[in-house]
């Protein structure tokens, strides 16, 4: 009978949901229990912009719309559109802005948020003069391309990203 109880306990321990085991062995930083901060991982394919950084909130440009994440946000997986990621490091500060071309953002139940993008740049690193030129060039290619062709779609991608860039920088497009 004692042996049977031991087997049940072993089975119960093995049957415990994986995420609970992982959570108990997660590094202390991932608990995010310090204040009202969430942990941010903001990365590019070859480099990490922020890793395990406690921040107050992030505004993420999701495909369905921009949304803000603070501590204890419900878990989300969102595909990103070309837009601006705004990171508020401490409540009350002005947000730090990065223009991203697209990617994915995951918010986990333990308030860790991962943003994985292909390319990101600070707004001050973007050439304001270039954006209307890129837009004009892309519109020309779009109008000249055949309906449903690959060239038209590639031009459409350029038009959309150029429009987002112009919107983020406050540049007027003709």
């Amino acid at each position, binding site marked *: 009978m004692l042996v049977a109880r031991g087997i049940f306990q072993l089975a119960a321990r093995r049957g415990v949901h994986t995420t609970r085991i992982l959570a108990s062995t997660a590094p202390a930083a991932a608990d995010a229990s310090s204040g009202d901060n969430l942990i941010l991982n903001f990365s590019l394919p070859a480099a990490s912009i922020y890793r395990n950084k406690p921040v107050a909130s992030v505004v993420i440009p999701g495909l369905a719309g921009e949304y803000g994440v603070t501590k204890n946000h419900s878990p989300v997986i969102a595909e990103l559109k*070309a837009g601006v990621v705004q990171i508020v490091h401490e409540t009350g500060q002005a947000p730090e802005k990065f223009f991203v071309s697209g990617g994915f953002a995951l918010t986990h139940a333990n308030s860790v948020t991962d943003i994985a993008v*292909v*390319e990101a*740049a600070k707004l001050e*690193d973007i*050439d304001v003069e270039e*954006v209307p030129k*890129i837009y004009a060039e892309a519109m020309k290619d779009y109008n000249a391309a055949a309906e449903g*062709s690959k060239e038209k779609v590639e031009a459409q991608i350029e038009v959309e990203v150029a429009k987002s*860039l112009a919107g983020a920088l406050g540049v007027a497009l003709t």
Partner: protein
Amino acid sequence: MSAAATTYWRIAGLTYLQYTSKAAGVLRAALKEPLRTKTMAKEKIFFKRLEWSPKMIGQPVGPLKVEVTSLK
């Protein structure tokens, strides 16, 4: 007219990687000079490939780098 069940780029035959790489390319083209040349270099993707055969033992290995163009 009903809404498409999928994205415009998928309909035209692009994969997500091609779409996202194109969008990143537009952002890189809009950057200011020193950062721009640095990040433009990221667009070049190479892979190295080697088919081994016993003849290669003791021989120096020739040029292997192949540029990946499928994401352009």
